[in-house]
């Protein structure tokens, strides 16, 4: 491409800006198909009996909010609909605020849910993989109190929770490490609990090897598309569904520009050949 005349990249920036902004303002409503990994996550949550307990770990910060927040909201909503009691925790310091935000967004729709009885936020604990390992041995040593300072012995939701054995499934919303990998390696591999998760689109390839016949990872929500598919499955279109239109248009613009770049390259190469002859 050294000698190829390049298009001013500010045109590309402008088109990407319009391609993202316009579909967010004027929703198109492009169709979505449910993929296998998303269906597996949905089935896992759906198969949990009423009153069972799940642990949701918020292992991300505001930088990954656009991708991970919609899937967090959809999964938590699905759990609340299924009357699954939720224990929130975070392996990332900012994850606590992310969990709080999701609870605040949803709790108005569920006036019957009570803090400490139906859901609890245990907060952040440093240590990553070792924290998860210690939770598997003795939950109460790692989290003697919730993030509001209440002793977990006083919280009805924590009755009988001494390790992972009474937890129906574990779900990690992960933007890196510690995240899904660490939860799989400890919660599933060492303690045999069903583990699932959601991650950003770019980190999905690193998680896919864990979706295998041993069910190390039960499904995966990878990126905004998976979040949108989940919203469709729970019949609650949200920001992921509207965001998918923007993402699709942006991808299409990128593909068009890749094609333009290649056409330019081949045209110039042909010209050079002709000139050489």
């Amino acid at each position, binding site marked *: 491409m050294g000698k190829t005349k390049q298009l001013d990249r500010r045109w590309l*920036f402008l088109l990407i800006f319009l391609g993202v902004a316009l579909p967010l303002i004027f929703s198109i409503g492009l169709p*979505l198909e449910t993929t296998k990994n998303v269906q597996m996550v949905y089935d896992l949550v759906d198969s949990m009996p009423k009153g069972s307990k799940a642990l949701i770990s918020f292992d991300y910060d505001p930088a990954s909010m656009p991708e991970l927040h919609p899937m967090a909201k959809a999964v938590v909503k699905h759990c609340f609909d299924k009357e699954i009691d939720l224990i929130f925790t975070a392996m990332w310091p900012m994850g606590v*605020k992310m969990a709080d935000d999701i609870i605040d967004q949803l709790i108005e729709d569920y006036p019957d849910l009570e803090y400490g009885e139906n859901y609890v936020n245990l907060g952040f604990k440093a240590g990553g993989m070792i*924290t998860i390992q210690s939770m598997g041995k003795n939950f109460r040593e790692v989290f003697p109190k919730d993030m509001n300072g209440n002793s977990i012995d006083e919280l009805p939701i924590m009755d009988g929770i001494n390790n992972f054995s009474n937890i129906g499934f574990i779900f990690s919303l992960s933007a890196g490490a510690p995240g899904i990998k660490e939860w799989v390696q400890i919660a599933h591999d060492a303690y045999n609990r069903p583990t699932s998760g959601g991650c950003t689109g770019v980190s999905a*390839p*690193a998680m896919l090897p864990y979706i295998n016949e041993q069910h190390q990872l039960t499904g995966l929500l990878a*990126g905004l598309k998976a979040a949108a598919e989940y919203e469709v499955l729970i019949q609650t279109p949200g920001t992921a569904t509207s965001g998918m239109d923007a993402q699709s248009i942006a*991808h299409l613009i990128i593909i068009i520009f890749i094609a333009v770049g290649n056409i330019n390259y081949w045209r110039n190469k042909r010209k050079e050949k002709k000139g050489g002859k």
Partner: protein
Amino acid sequence: MKRKIPLLITFTVGIILIISEFIPHKPFGQLSGELEIWFLIISGFAILLGQLSLFKVNIIKIRYKQHDWQFYIVTLASFVVMVALGFLWGTGRSAGLLGHGEVITNTLGYKPFDYLFNNIYQHLQATMFSLLAFFIASAAYRAFIGRTVESNLLLASAVLVMLGNTTFGSLLTGWLPESLNFLHLPKVSEFIMTFPTTAGQRAIMIGAGLGIIGSSLRIILGIERSYLGGE
């Protein structure tokens, strides 16, 4: 002696943890449990150490008026303000030293810490991340050129995965009959991600795993000593 004691501690702790994985009974199981708790306590202190280090590094830069020293004042000021607000009025449902600060909370709509977090920090981080879209688009346009067989393969798979991950993928090939369903773009994308990509990832993971085992053994046996500083 200054180096021998840390090496001895590393060796002993490393060996206990390895044995406890194979013999999770007394005394190894108990010892490894204790060591894990120690790790969590040290991790907590590491955060404090990080904050002190942030202070020290930034103050030195400001004191000697190093290049762009004004930005370091912003870093320190932001740090102090957030810590102070968190300490004074708490965050979320937890109270601070001055309680929940009802008056200021009613005025702002949030606690001061939450107000700044929700209205400044979140948006700054989201903005930084969003800029990636523009740079990725520009990089893809310049880099995805089919010069060789390998780059053509990369180009084709990138375009197929990108299309398969958009709603256009379903639209473009949704009309295909059942017998040609394997050509449906989301299916093609899923195939690329499930087989070639996962195979490559597994190879990387196995390689990285072996590397971790190797370097861990070097540390436990005292061959690798760079973590002690010096040398």
